[in-house]
């Protein structure tokens, strides 16, 4: 593969299989989502991997979509903020961010929420606020809503654990 040819890639985005023709290999996953697929929930902050506003899940893992070449992700499963809610029912992390005032202007919020979803599934933080803060350090909030964000992540984690217990029972 290579040499000026147009690239065709397959991605599953929020459960929907898509075949995407890329006319330029320079397209990042972030630009693909926002500019070509019009999924503008994922935000462009710094575009250099420093702010976390562009965080999405790739094959279930949180990454910075601004530093990923779309062509390189051929075959991957992508989850963006648009894919979290179940119809009108918010995802527990979304609901917890509202309940705990985990934002002010809201620009960093999709990235914060996707990062929190990733953090909870990684399962390395326990219920230690210091570990939550450390593992959320890739998401900057210039309004300074960190207190609410930490509380929201703790509550959503508890909520999701309870749901999992109920589902298992």
């Amino acid at each position, binding site marked *: *593969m*290579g*040499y*000026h040819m147009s*690239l065709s890639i397959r991605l599953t985005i929020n459960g929907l299989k898509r075949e995407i023709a890329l006319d*330029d*290999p*320079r397209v*990042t996953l972030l630009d693909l989502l926002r500019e070509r697929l019009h999924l503008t929930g994922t935000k462009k902050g710094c*575009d*250099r*991997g420093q702010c*976390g506003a562009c*965080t999405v899940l790739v094959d279930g*893992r*949180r*990454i*910075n979509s*601004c*530093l*990923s*070449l779309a*062509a*390189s992700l051929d075959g991957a499963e992508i989850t963006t903020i648009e894919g979290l809610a179940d119809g009108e029912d918010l995802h527990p992390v979304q609901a917890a961010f509202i309940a705990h005032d985990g934002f002010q202007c809201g620009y960093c919020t999709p990235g914060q929420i996707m*990062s929190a979803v*990733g*953090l909870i599934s*990684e399962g*390395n933080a326990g219920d*230690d606020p*210091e*570990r939550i*803060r*450390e*593992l*959320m*350090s*890739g*998401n900057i909030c210039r309004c300074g809503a960190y207190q609410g964000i930490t509380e929201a992540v703790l509550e959503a984690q508890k909520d999701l654990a309870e749901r999992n217990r109920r589902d298992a029972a």
Partner: protein
Amino acid sequence: MNRFDYIRPASVPEAVEAAAVPGSTYLAAGTNLLDLMKGGAARPERVIDITRLPGLDRIEWLPDGSVRVGALVRNSDLAYDDRFARTFPAVAEALLSGASAQLRNAATVGGNLMQRTRCAYFHDLASACNRRAPGSGCDAREGENRLHAVLGWSEHCIATHPSDFCVPLVALDAVAEVAGAHGAREIPVDALHVLPGATPEQETALAPGELIVSLRIPAEAAAFARNARYLKLRERTSFAFAVVSVAAALEMEAGAIRKARIALGGIAAKPWRAREAEVSLEGAEANPEAFAKAAEMALAEARPSGDNAFKIELARRIVARALTLALDGTPEAMPALPASPFSTTPGANHAA
């Protein structure tokens, strides 16, 4: 970002063949390369995507107790691998002290070894930089250089190597396994990154087109598992490069030091192994005097390259403190703030 040809080889030999063409560069996760390409500091004509190469995403324990880690293993997968973290705790701690969770989920072992300096003048195309544009000069020499090198620098370049991961790797005698057009070879990680001298554009010992396919940590390194730490001083608590960092590991026997390993990060163009300081500790009683002497020896050759004389004293103190923490023992669980001097790990002596 400049235009480039995107090439996705299916095997290591295919990748090496594709990269033999001048102007080629390998792409793994891209967390460093895409950043450099967006700023224009890297302008490859051909991007060889190695993320699909088979067999490079495994952590493989060899019969002799050493471990082979594929170049495509993600930083987080390695750091959270139970057996790996128990066997080489300072490596896991260094990995978790680097970057952010998102970047660690993407960034690969090979990519970390190949990451470029974070010197602002290297990144800024309007600045003179011998590393980026040979012969253009070094604006860092008279610029903002408080975080630049204090060991191994030259008039041509005072940049530092930014990796955390590579610091304990150098301390533990890790080896990079390399594929190239002329076959396979091994390069100790300590010899992979080279000092600038008069040719700072020559950043590694790799020949053009050579590819790191895996990393091997020898079985002997496991002997330090009970007394191994990575300590990293940053200008903020998390998601920052080291001002100074140290990997310190001790092998204790009946209260005395049998063997010691010390390497420093953030102070030179390569992770800096302090071999003479290690030797000074062998057979010695583990006490503050011995650690202070080792720290003194580790920085004996250091000299400021600008407004950074403070880093020399800072590095001495961090060496002594990392040795003290190593003596206290590897923590049962990874500290909440890995490698942080502000960590709440019991036994940390904040005044050391």
